[in-house]
C-alpha cells in the first residue's frame, strides 16, 4: 500500500489534535467541578474562587494550545 507523505501528515494532524485535547478537556472539567463544589459550600468566596479557577484553567488550556501549535505547524509549515 502506497503511503504518501501527504497522507501521513494529515493522519498525524488528526491524531495530534484528537488525542492531545483529551487531557486538557478532562482537566478543565475537573477544575470547573472543584470550583462549583467550592462555590456551593461557600457562596461568599465567589471572587477568589473565580479568580483562582481562571488561573488554573489557563494552565490546563496552555497544554491544549501547545498541541494546536504543533498541529498548525504540521499542516502549514512542514
Amino acid at each position, binding site marked *: 500500500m502506497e503511503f504518501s507523505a501527504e497522507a501521513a501528515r494529515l493522519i498525524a494532524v488528526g491524531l495530534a489534535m484528537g488525542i492531545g485535547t483529551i487531557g486538557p478537556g478532562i482537566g478543565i472539567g475537573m477544575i470547573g467541578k472543584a470550583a462549583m463544589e467550592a462555590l456551593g459550600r461557600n457562596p461568599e468566596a465567589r*471572587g*477568589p474562587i473565580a*479568580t483562582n479557577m*481562571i*488561573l488554573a484553567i*489557563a494552565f490546563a*488550556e*496552555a497544554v491544549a*494550545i*501547545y498541541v*494546536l*501549535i504543533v498541529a*498548525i*505547524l504540521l499542516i*502549514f*509549515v512542514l
Partner: protein
Amino acid sequence: MSKGRIAVFLVVGGVLVSAASFIGGSVGAAIAGREPVPLLVVSPPHIELEPGRPFGYSFPTNTMLASWLTCLVLIVLSLLATRRVQLVPTGLQNAAEYLVEFGSNFIEQMVGKEHERHFFPVVVTIFLFVVTNAWLALLPGYESLRVNGVPLLRSANTDINVPLMLALVSAFFVEYMGFRSRGIAYLRTFLDVRRLAAAVRNFAKGCLREGLVDAFYGVLYVFVGLMELLSHCVRVASFSFRLFGNMTAGSVLIGAGIFLVPLVLPSVFYGLEALFGLVQAVIFASLTAVFGYGAVYYGEH
C-alpha cells in the same frame, strides 16, 4: 411598531440570512455539488504564521504597525483621561479611575498590600497592551486592507515575537522582584545548600543519624531548586505560546468561519474572540503577578 413585531422581524431576518449564507456559501455548494453563489465566494483560509511586510523588506511588518497603533490609542486615551483632572471624575477620567481601582484591588488580592504598588505598573501595562491589541484587531480593516497583496495591519498578538517579548518582560520582572525583596539570597530558590551544609557539620561533629537525615533532605532540596530553575525557564515558553496560540487560533477560526458560512458564523466567533482577548490578557497579567508573589515569598522552609 411594537417590540414583539421588531423581534419577529429580526428573528425571521436572521434565519433567512443564515439559510442563504449556508445554502449559497461553500458548505451548501459542497453538499449540492454546485458552485457557490458569486456574492459569497471566499477563498479558503490562508494561514501565515510569519508576519507579512506590506512595504517590502526594509520596512516594518504589519504586526509592528498594529502594535504602534495600539500604543498610539493607549497614549491618546490616557492623555484625554488626565487632561483636566477634577475631584469628582466624569467621563473618560471616571473610566480610567475605575480601571485603576479595579486593577489595584485585583493585584492586592494576589500579592498583598505592601507589594501592590511595586506590581501595579508592569502588570497593568501588560494587561492593557494585550487587551488593546486583541480588541483593536477585531475592527474591520485588520487583515483585509492589503498593500502589495499583504495585509496592512495584523493583530500584534499573532506575531510570535510580541508574546515572546511580553513573556521575557514578565520573567525579568519576576526575577527583579525576587532580588529586590530578598537580595542575593534569592538565588537560594535555585540552589539551596544550607541543609547540605548542616549535614556536613553534623558528620564532622559525629552525629551520624542527624547527618544522614540532613544529607537526604539536602540532596532533595538541591533537586527541588534545580526543578525550580527549569520551571522558570519553561515559563517563558509557556507564556508566549499560550498567548500566541490563543490569538492565532482565534484568527484562524474567524477565517474558517468566513469561508464556511460567510455572513453568520464570523459574528458568533467575533464575540468569542473579544472574550478570549480579555481572558488571555487577564491570565497573562495575573500569572505575572502570581509568579512575582511566589518569588517574593518563596520558601518558608
